[in-house]
């Protein structure tokens, strides 16, 4: 990566990137820049039930109610502490909170799997960068509204939307999905690929283009 590429990338975003105008992103900015608790309370009222619903769908186990509560606490706490780093031109509030939730899950799994005393290595954010701040940005993207992604998901054949939902909502690997559904691994992988291909239009937005640098 060239030196200063990040500075240049940020400048590019400010000049040409589309700033997310949706309500939740604005509230998140208010939390980040003003430490506004009223805005945070509105975010909590909206996202806490979504996060808990996500977690409950994952397990259906008897402990999933508890796990859902814990996940809400952890995710929303991180939302509060990390909101100053939120950049609405890089991600919608939904997407940013999704990545925080994913990292909380990775953290929880890692704590279970790790030998004690190994916490001093890389943090989950080093490996799963929430803000994608370290990444070069050479594509301009006109983000589609998230509702158009949801609509496109609704049009997928059931067998494709099922595996994609399991992957994101339940956080499962292809192998886990394959065991759970009793399908060959290759079938799961190809359904995921086919589904993603069909979602491509909604995900990329039509105005996405490569910037010459």
């Amino acid at each position: 990566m060239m030196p200063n590429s990040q500075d240049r990338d940020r400048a590019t975003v400010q000049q040409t990137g589309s700033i997310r105008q949706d309500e939740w992103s604005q509230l998140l900015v208010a939390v980040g820049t003003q430490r506004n608790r009223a805005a945070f309370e509105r975010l909590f009222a909206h996202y806490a039930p979504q996060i808990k619903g996500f977690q409950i769908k994952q397990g259906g186990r008897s402990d999933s109610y508890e796990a859902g509560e814990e996940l809400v606490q952890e995710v929303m706490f991180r939302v509060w502490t990390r909101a100053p780093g939120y950049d609405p031109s890089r991600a919608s509030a939904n997407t940013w909170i999704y990545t925080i939730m994913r990292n909380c899950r990775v953290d929880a799994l890692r704590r279970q799997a790790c030998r004690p005393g190994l916490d001093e290595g890389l943090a989950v954010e080093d490996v799963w960068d929430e803000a994608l701040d370290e990444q070069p940005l050479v594509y301009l993207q006109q983000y589609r509204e998230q509702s158009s992604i949801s609509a496109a998901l609704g049009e997928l054949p059931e067998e494709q939307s099922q595996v994609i939902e399991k992957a994101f909502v339940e956080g499962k690997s292809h192998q886990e999905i394959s065991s759970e559904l009793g399908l060959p691994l290759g079938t799961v992988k190809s359904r995921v690929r086919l589904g993603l291909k069909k979602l491509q239009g909604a995900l990329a937005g039509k105005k996405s283009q490569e910037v010459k640098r």
Partner: protein
Amino acid sequence: MIEHHPDQNLLLEYANGSLPWAQALAVSAHIQMCPRCTQHLRQLNELGGALLDQSTASEPASDSWSRLMARVDSSEAESAAPATAEPPVAPRKISDPMLSGAPPVIRKLLHTNPPLHWQRVSRGLRAARLVTGQASSEVAFHRISCGAKVAEHDHRGQEITVVLYGSFSDADGVYSVGDFLVRQPGQVHRPTATQDQECLCLSVVEAPVAVTGLLGRLINPFLGIRPA
């Protein structure tokens, strides 16, 4: 120009957090060098965000908000208190020119590791193991001398290679900085570094636990490279 990328399935397993730590490290290193995969990852994250948005809401417990704010208040009181902790130790400078331009995740990994200990694996090939806090895969740097031909070999577990410096080639192609390769066990290859430059790669090899058991692997980790 990066020519070899992780496939959609691997990127999705990175985006949903289900990829094991060591493999995620390799994907992360690639993404930090690759605008194309960064863009794909952004799209996958957007998909995650859309699914979060349409999840069936489930009301949190009645004391959920007050518990959260109690934690927020106590953490803010803590951070407002005068710091008593020692100032953070400045990270060791990375003197190796092959690593100073490595992506951020690799530089951070170096800072959390003891100084690298290079071991000769075979003629023209040296390796240094990295500590990542997990045991399911072996993570190492491999360094091929200018123009050296590595002995033809096979891997016992799936191997991911990310080129961090220089370039190498094998019968299937030429791989340069940022390229991401997956080799399945049984895929024999013989990498050769380019004549004028050393080559440095990150390599992540799945532990072949079923074959030798954990102990054998710990005693001689570089048995992972064996002549075919």
